[in-house]
């Protein structure tokens, strides 16, 4: 295996290289073989988060959110995504917590029933890694966020997995007495797992 003849190896890599070049040229020319993933499969996608209470990680999730996206791995920079979250569908880990977080001090769901993320740019980080930058709006407050993600194909589906960390106080999530970060940490990690089929 390691003693493969050097000539074989270089021939092989030359073939690979020309194939790659061809792919790039075709891509630039707007080839019909490029696949754009955009048919989001809501029931297979998840939006979860981890908050820290008294140093203990507590898992939560949003049961209802809508994702609109367009992503072609051959043209990642043209990709775009939008997430709309139904804030009332939050599950913060327990009934007590759920009753609490919809209230004024936390998400104030009555006045702000929706939160959203709208991408402004996507860049390739190499390999299967990418990064989406965009605007996150929660409780009427807007912040720039960058979310690294991986993309892989599984049959006809594209699978996006990524995360980012936000500081809840930047959005006034849990203000007043709850701004005490020794009880509930400021950092909250958001994780998304989105499955989208190729558009035909």
């Amino acid at each position: 295996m390691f003693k493969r003849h050097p000539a074989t190896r270089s021939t092989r890599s030359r073939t690979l290289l020309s194939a790659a070049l061809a792919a790039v040229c075709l891509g630039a020319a707007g080839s019909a073989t490029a696949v754009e993933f955009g048919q989001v499969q809501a029931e297979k996608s998840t939006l979860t988060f981890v908050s820290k209470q008294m140093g203990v990680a507590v898992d939560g999730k949003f049961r209802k959110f809508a994702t609109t996206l367009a992503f072609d791995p051959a043209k990642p920079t043209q990709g775009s995504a939008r997430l709309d979250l139904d804030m009332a569908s939050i599950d913060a880990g327990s009934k007590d917590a759920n009753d609490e977080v919809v209230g004024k001090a936390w998400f104030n769901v009555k006045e702000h029933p929706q939160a959203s993320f709208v991408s402004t740019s996507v860049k390739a980080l190499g390999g299967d890694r990418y990064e989406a930058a965009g605007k996150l709006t929660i409780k009427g407050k807007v912040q720039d966020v960058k979310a690294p993600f991986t993309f892989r194909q599984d049959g006809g589906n594209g699978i996006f997995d990524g995360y980012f960390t936000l500081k809840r106080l930047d959005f006034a999530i849990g203000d007043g007495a709850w701004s005490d970060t020794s009880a509930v940490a400021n950092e909250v990690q958001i994780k998304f797992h989105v499955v989208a089929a190729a558009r035909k």
Partner: protein
Amino acid sequence: MTPKRYTRTAIGLHWLMALLLIGTFGVGLYMTGLKLSPFKLKIYSWHKWAGVAAFLLVFLRLAWRAGHRPPPLVAGLPRWQEIAAHGLHHLLYLLMIAIPLSGWLMSSAKGFQTVWFGVLPLPDLLAKNAELGDLLQTVHVWLNYGFAALLAAHVAAALKHHVVDRDDTLTRMLPLLEKNR
């Protein structure tokens, strides 16, 4: 000759744990009625941490007891009192294990891991399961009521021996009374 008193270590552990358990019990009763707040999260954590400390101490105490048998009960007790005293002591040990254990399992089932003093994570022996969590909460609460009832009997018996029978039952469990030996 067989000793008539508990060892100093046994006495120390008895009273240290008595303070810790009664304190944890009181905090438990107080905290559940609080409105959700950062303070409530903190006091719940302290309740758990104190309970876990008691859980560790009871094993230390039992290990010490295994190597240093307690003195025989004061002489001349009716048979039923001997049985009641031993039975009660064993039940108290059992509850000193079962109560924190039920608390630990309840926390796991409710999806809140116990991290001792915010530093040492205890493994979650149960996966998150809301119904099981509620069931274990009921178990934790009823074990505590049982504990309160047994403790009342335990304390009443100790005081009765001291005040009515005027025997050495209480003094031999009290610290700093070495001269009574």
